[in-house]
Each structure stands twice: as C-alpha cells, then as structure tokens.
C-alpha cells in the first residue's frame, strides 16, 4: 500500500485515508488475477523423462517442473491464462501431434532435441565380443520366449526396474525381438498388453536385476559384476554408466550397430531415444511472457545443462555437436521473437 502523502505539512484527511483503503481493497480483490497473468512459463515433465527433471537445473526464480503422464498433451491443452508451456519428454514428437497441438492450443510450437538416451550391452573388457540382436536377446532372456530355443544363452545383468534403461530394454529390444520371433497369434494385438507381455524378463537364474540406487551405487554394482562375471555374461547398462566404466566393460553391437555418438545422432542405434524440449507459445502470449520463456529456455539450453560436461550428460544423455547446440539456441530466439 502506498504511504499517504502529506500536502503542505497537513496530515492525510478523510479522502486520503479513503483512497488508501480503496487501493488496498482493490489490491486484495485483484491479486489472483495479477498472478494469473504472470509471465512465467509453465514447465511440464513427461513420465518418460521423469528421471531427467532434476538434471535440468533452473534459476531459483524459475517455476518448478510439474510431473504429468503425457506432458505434450497437457502442454497442448488450451489454458485460459495463455501462459507459455514448456514440455520435456523422451521420444519423438509426431507431426500430427504437433499440428493438432497448434490448433487446439491456438499456439505456435517449437520442438528441440537436447540429446539421446541409450541402453548399451557390454561384456567385461578382454572377453570375446559376441554381436547381439534383439531376437537373440528376447529368446535368451524374455519371459515370453519359448524355453529351449536360446542357443548358448548366457546370463544378463539387467537394469533396475522402473529406470529409463529398463524402459529402453523392454520397448526397444525385447518387444522387437518378441514380435519378430513369435508367431502373430501368440503376441497380444493391443499395444499396452503387448508391451507388458513382451518386456517381461525371464524369472530364471540367468537374469539378475540390479538393485535400485544412486548412480554411484549402480556403477559399483557393474564394476563388481565385471570382476566376477562368468563366460557368456552380458550387462545392459546406461550410456552414462558405460562412459564411467570405460576400460572395465566393452560395448557389443546391437543389431549390427555400436552405440557411438554418430550412430546415436543418425538415429540408427536401436536401443535409444531422443530427449526433446517442446515450447507451446499461444499466439496471444505477451512480450514479457515471451521474454520470461526465453530466459527459462536459455537456462535449459545452457552448456551447463546440454553440453558434453553438462548435467544431462551426467544422467546418460549424449550431448549434441556444438554447432547443433548453438543452432538450437538461435532457433529458440527466432521462435520467441517472431511476432
């Protein structure tokens, strides 16, 4: 409330007190409205990228991530306040969804790639490298695979349940092997049921799941495994863990492709997915809102986050080439400054 002003050394009169009271009342009455027009963007964190939310360090005054099962769908829902929405997700953003989002949210959209997440199959260093394919992995370690079909099945150190690596193993390796190896009638038709059916790992003693824990604990578990692994043993680990354990374990090709940075960038390594940042900007968004979104966007695209030594790299996300990172920032500026 502004202080009551003195006029010619007089004390505030009835009118002065009345104006102050009115201002206070108006302030209280319209406070929620003023908050509704806050220029800060709303951040949606998709379930597929939930583990990465903490890695995206934001300024102290930036809004917090809101976890949601489908961040893009939530971001594309028309909101009455017209706030700019930013969604972080893993996987691709189909063109159809993008077009639908633009129409439903009366907005413009920009989707940027931050990097790639990958699952790597490794053997202890010095052991013979046996190239793997999805069908062989499914036959050897999939619960739905008919027993006795695996040729010289070894043992698998599988990722902890519920981790991004586990999701990649199930969706990109086991499911592919499942639909390829099993007859059509043996595989559920519905996508959700098929995912559960195909992604289940064998209950036998040839599969050992890692215990959930911190990144350091995970690395320690793999190190211990590599020291005592029997012949024919393989481990499915994240890219970050492999980078941490270079020299201790050696990656093996999956479906004939090694998880190199070039293969990941080209999109030909099977057990990988892109990490995307989607901006949904309503056409009615104000300039202060665009400026605030630009600040937040720059914080998310900073070298400290998406660079080779950034926080995302620490979580196993490969960084993009320098020119691509610069291009992403330029595209964001162009997008948010466009009328």
């Amino acid at each position, binding site marked *: 409330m502004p202080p009551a002003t003195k006029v010619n050394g007089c004390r505030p009169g009835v009118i002065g007190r009345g104006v102050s009271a009115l201002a206070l009342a108006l302030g209280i009455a319209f406070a929620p409205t003023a908050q509704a027009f806050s220029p800060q963007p709303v951040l949606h964190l998709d379930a597929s990228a939930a583990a990465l939310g903490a890695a995206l360090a934001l300024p102290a005054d930036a809004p917090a991530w809101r976890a949601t099962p489908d961040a893009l769908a939530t971001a594309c829902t028309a909101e009455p306040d017209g706030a700019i929405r930013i969604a972080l997700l893993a996987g*691709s953003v189909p063109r*159809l969804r993008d077009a639908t989002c633009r129409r439903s949210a009366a907005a413009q959209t920009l989707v940027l790639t931050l990097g790639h997440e990958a699952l790597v199959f490794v053997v202890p260093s010095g052991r013979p490298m046996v190239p793997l394919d999805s069908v062989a992995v499914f036959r050897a370690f999939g619960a739905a695979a008919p027993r006795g079909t695996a040729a010289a099945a070894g043992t698998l150190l599988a990722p902890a349940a519920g981790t991004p690596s586990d999701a990649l193993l199930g969706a990109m390796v086991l499911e592919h092997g499942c639909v390829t190896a099993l007859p059509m009638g043996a595989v559920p038709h519905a996508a959700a049921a098929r995912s559960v059916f195909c992604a289940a790992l064998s209950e036998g003693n040839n599969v050992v799941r890692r215990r959930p824990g911190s990144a350091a604990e995970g690395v320690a578990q793999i190190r211990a495994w590599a020291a005592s692994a029997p012949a024919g043993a393989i481990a499915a680990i994240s890219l970050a863990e492999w980078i941490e354990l270079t020299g201790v374990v050696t990656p093996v090709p999956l479906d004939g492709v090694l998880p190199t940075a070039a293969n990941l960038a080209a999109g030909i390594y099977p057990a990988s997915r892109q990490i995307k940042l989607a901006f949904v900007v309503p056409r009615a968004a104000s300039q202060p809102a665009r400026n605030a979104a630009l600040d937040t966007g720059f914080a998310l695209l900073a070298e400290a986050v998406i660079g080779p030594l950034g926080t995302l790299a620490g979580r196993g996300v490969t960084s993009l080439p320098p020119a691509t990172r610069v291009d992403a920032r330029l595209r964001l500026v162009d997008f948010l400054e466009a009328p």
Partner: protein
Amino acid sequence: MHLSRRSLNLLALPLACWLFAATPSAAQAEAEPSRGWLSDAATAVSNGFGSALDGASATLRTAWSFVLPEAPFDFVPERLGESDLAFIAMMQAAGLSLTEIEAGGGLLPDVRYRFVASREPSAADYARAARALTLHKSSYSGLRAIAHRRIVRTVLEAGEGGLYQVEMLEIAVRPWPSVRYVLAARERPIDVADRRLLEALRESQQR
C-alpha cells in the same frame, strides 16, 4: 516340281517359326538324322535368322505379358528383389504384414499387394520403423526406393500420435502404380459378431 529361291524363302519362314516354337535341344538335333531337303532348308533358314527370331520371340513374350494374366509366382516375396524385401521389412516394423497378393487381369494385367495391420502399433513400433527408414535411405536409391520410403513415411505420419492408424494398405504395381490407404479409428465400436462373442465369454465367466 521346281521351287524358286524366293518361294523357298517364303515357305521356309513360317516353318522356321514353327520349328522355333518347338525347338529340340542341340543334342537331339545332332542325334536325329536329316529328314529331307525341306527340313534341311528350314534348319538353314532358321539358323540364319536365329538371332533375329530370338529377339522377335522376346518381343512376342513381352507382348503376351501385356495381354495374358500375370502369374502370381513372379510376385511372391521369395522372388522379389532386395529393395522390395527391405520395404516389406519396414512395413512389418510398422505393424503391417503382407497378407495378400492379387495377380490376374486380362488385356490389362493387374497385380496388387495388400498389407494389413497385424497388431496395434506402439510408439516403439513407430520408432523402429523410423530407424528402418533411416537405414533404407542410406542403402537404397532410385525412384522405386523413394516411393517405398514415401509410403512408409505416410503410414508413420498417419498413425503416430493420432486417433487413427493405417489398418490396410493396398499397393498396385500393374497396370499402373497406385496406393490406397485405409485408416481406422483406434477406438471404435466392435462389430456385432465380436460383441456376441464377448457377451458369450462374459456369460461363461459369470457361470
């Protein structure tokens, strides 16, 4: 009877054609004795015009192929080229299986391939198909490969992230190339027969 050289040629040409249609093998020809002057003359003419007749025969076969119905044997996957097989693999990755090959027709031969959704495609299916598309682009070139990629990309764009998915796809290669997509809603009411079956199952479970 005296036959001039010109009339001999006129007589020999149709005979040579007839002989070509039922040409014995070289070994048989050597083993069999000469059957007289007419046969010898025909053989001589046939040898002289052999290469020309080979070409004429090929042309004739091509002409017949435009008129006669196509044989399905030539269009089964086992007889297709590497590029076509890669296309079928991409379609399978997207959840579409080759289920029918129609070959036939009359004056204008008709060959068409039908792909049907063998499963409800998941995000992982689409990701795999997109990866196969990237690999295909680096391995195959030419108009045919471009057309293959265009079809797969359309399937992905139509189905991925939408309310509809490609349920059936028909590709005609003869008499002229064409593509027909059938999109079906992901959530749709079941038909009468399926509903009866479902109700019967529920009833049996309740019992």
